[in-house]
C-alpha cells in the first residue's frame, strides 16, 4: 500500500523542485509584470517610484507611441525567419541525405559558430559590412551600390544579422526531422513516376513539417524580441520594440510603459504561435 502511494507521488516529487523554481522565477515575475504595467507615477515621488492604480490606458499609450517599432519587430522577424528557412532547409537537406560519412562532422560545423560569442560575431559583421571592411568598397567599385550607399545602419543589415544569429536554431530541428525520414518513401514516390519536384512537394516537405514548425518558431520568437542586432547593425531608424523596452527600463526608468510593452509583445507572440501551431497542425512540438 505504501509502495503504491509512493509510486503515484513519485512523478510529482520529481517535478516539485523544478516547478517551484519556475513558479517563483518565471510565473511570479510575469504576474508582477502584469501588475507593474498598470501602475502610475506617485504624485510628488522620485523618478522610478510608481503605485498600483490599474491604469489600463498605459497599454493604449504604450502601443500607439510605439506602433512603428512593433510593426518593424514583426516584419524584421518575419523576414529573418523566411530567409533563415530558405538558407537552412537546403543545408539541412544536404547534411541529412547527401553528406555520407561527413554527416556528423557537418552537423558539428553548423553548431560551431555558435561557440564564438554571438556578440563578437555580430560585431564582426558590423566591421565586415562597415566602411572599413572590404565588402562596401568592392561593391562600390563594381557599381552594385552607389558611392554614398552604406550597408550598416540599414534594415538590411539588421535582418541579415538576425538571420545569421538564429540560423542554427532553424537548421537543427530541420535536420532532426529530415533525418528521420525513411529514404525508401522518397524512392517509392520515384517508382510511382513522381519527378524530383513532386516527390519533394508531396513526400519530403510534408514529412519534414514538424522541423519546419519548430525551426521557424525557434527563429521567430527570439528575433521578434531581439534588440542587440538592431543596436549594433542598425540605426535609430531601425529600432525594434526590444530597443524601446530596454531604454524605457534603463535610461528613462519608465517601468509601467516597459512592462506594458513587454506584456503586449509576449501576448502577441503567444497568439501568433498558437494560431501558427494550429494551422501547421503539429502538436508534438513540445
Amino acid at each position, binding site marked *: 500500500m505504501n509502495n503504491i502511494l509512493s509510486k503515484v507521488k513519485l*512523478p*510529482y516529487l*520529481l*517535478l516539485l523542485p*523544478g*516547478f517551484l*523554481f*519556475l513558479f517563483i*522565477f*518565471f510565473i*511570479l*515575475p*510575469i504576474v*508582477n*509584470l502584469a501588475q507593474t504595467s498598470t501602475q502610475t507615477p506617485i504624485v510628488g515621488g522620485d523618478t522610478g517610484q510608481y503605485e498600483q492604480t490599474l491604469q489600463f490606458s498605459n497599454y493604449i499609450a504604450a502601443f500607439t507611441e510605439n506602433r512603428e517599432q512593433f510593426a518593424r519587430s514583426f516584419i524584421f522577424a518575419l523576414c529573418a525567419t523566411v530567409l533563415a528557412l530558405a*538558407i*537552412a532547409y537546403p*543545408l539541412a537537406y*544536404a547534411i541529412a541525405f*547527401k553528406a555520407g560519412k561527413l554527416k*556528423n562532422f*557537418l552537423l*558539428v*560545423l553548423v*553548431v560551431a*559558430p*555558435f*561557440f*564564438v*560569442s*554571438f*556578440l*563578437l*560575431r*555580430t*560585431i*564582426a559583421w558590423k*566591421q565586415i559590412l562597415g566602411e*572599413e571592411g572590404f565588402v562596401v568598397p568592392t561593391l562600390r567599385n563594381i557599381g552594385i551600390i552607389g558611392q554614398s550607399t552604406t550597408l550598416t545602419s540599414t534594415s538590411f543589415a539588421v535582418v541579415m544579422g538576425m538571420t*545569421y544569429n538564429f540560423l542554427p536554431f532553424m537548421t537543427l530541428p530541420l535536420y532532426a526531422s529530415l533525418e528521420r525520414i525513411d529514404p525508401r518513401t522518397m524512392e517509392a514516390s520515384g517508382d510511382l513516376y513522381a519527378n524530383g519536384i513532386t516527390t519533394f512537394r508531396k513526400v519530403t516537405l510534408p514529412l519534414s513539417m514538424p522541423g519546419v514548425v519548430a525551426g521557424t518558431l*525557434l527563429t521567430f*520568437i*527570439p528575433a521578434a*524580441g*531581439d*534588440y*542587440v542586432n538592431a543596436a549594433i547593425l542598425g540605426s535609430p531608424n531601425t529600432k525594434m520594440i*526590444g530597443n524601446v523596452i*530596454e531604454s524605457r527600463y534603463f535610461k528613462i526608468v519608465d517601468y509601467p510603459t*516597459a*512592462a506594458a510593452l*513587454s*506584456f503586449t*509583445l*509576449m501576448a502577441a*507572440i*503567444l497568439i501568433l*504561435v498558437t494560431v501558427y501551431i494550429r494551422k501547421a497542425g503539429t502538436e508534438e*512540438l*513540445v
Partner: protein
Amino acid sequence: MNKQKDATIPTIPTKARLSRWFGRNLIRIYAVFGFTYLFIPVVYTFAFSFNDSGKSNLIWKGFTLDNWKNPCGAPEVCTALGNSIKIGLLATVFSTILGTMIAFAIGRYAFKGRSSSNLLIFLPMATPEIVLGASLLSLFLVFHINPGFWPTVIAHVMFCISFVVVTVKARIASLDPRLEQAAMDLYANELETFRRVTLPLVAPGIAGAALLAFSLSFDDFIITNFNSGTLKTFPEFVYTSAARGIPAQANVIGSAMFILALLIVIAGQFVGRKVKVSK
C-alpha cells in the same frame, strides 16, 4: 533515343554536361554557400585575434602573437570571462539537476497534469528573452534584491531548465524499454535498474543538455544585462566596449572558446562511438 544519349556521354557538349553536373550537385553547391555564410564572421574574429591592433581592433595592422600570449592584457576582459564561467557552471549544475528530474517525470510517468507540465516547460522558450529578463528584474526590485551575481545565476537557471528538459526527454523517449525489462527479469529491483541501466543510457542526453545549458548561459546577453547590475559578464564586456572598439583579447577568448568547444564535441563523438561498439 534517351538511352542512346546516356550511353554516349562524351559526345554531349561541355555546356550540357556542366549544366547537368550543376543540376546534380546544386544542393551541395548551395550547402557550401551556406557554410561560407556561417563561417565568415568566425574566420574574421579568429583572424583579428592575431591583429597587432593597439586599442581598437578595427583595421588590420599586422600579424602578432602577443594577444594570444597575453589574453588578459586588456583591462577587465579576464574578470568578465571569470564571471561568465562561474555563472555558467553554477547555472549548468542547477538547471541540469532540476531539468533532468522534470524530464524523467514527464518522460516516464503518466500522471494528472502532464500536459500542463509540458506547457509550463514550453512557455519560457516561447517568451522573448527581453520579457524574461525584464520581468525577473522587476520581481527583484519589488523584493529589494539588488541585481548582481546570484540574480544572474537564478535568471540563467530559469531559462536553461526548459532546454535541459527537452533534450533529456528526447533521449528518454528513444530508450528501448526492453532493456529495463531485461534488467528486471534478471532480478534487479527498481533502484538497481535505474542506477545500472536507465541512468547510464540517459547519461549522454544529460551530458548534451549540460553542454547546451553552459553554452546558452555563457553566451547570454539580454537576460543577463537586465539582472547583472554592475557585474560584467563576457558578452556584456564585448557589448559595452563595442563603442570604443573591442580589444583583440576579446577575439582571442572567443576563438579559444570556439576551439575548446569543438574539441569537447569531437571528444564526445568518440566516446559515443566507443559506447556503441562496446554495446
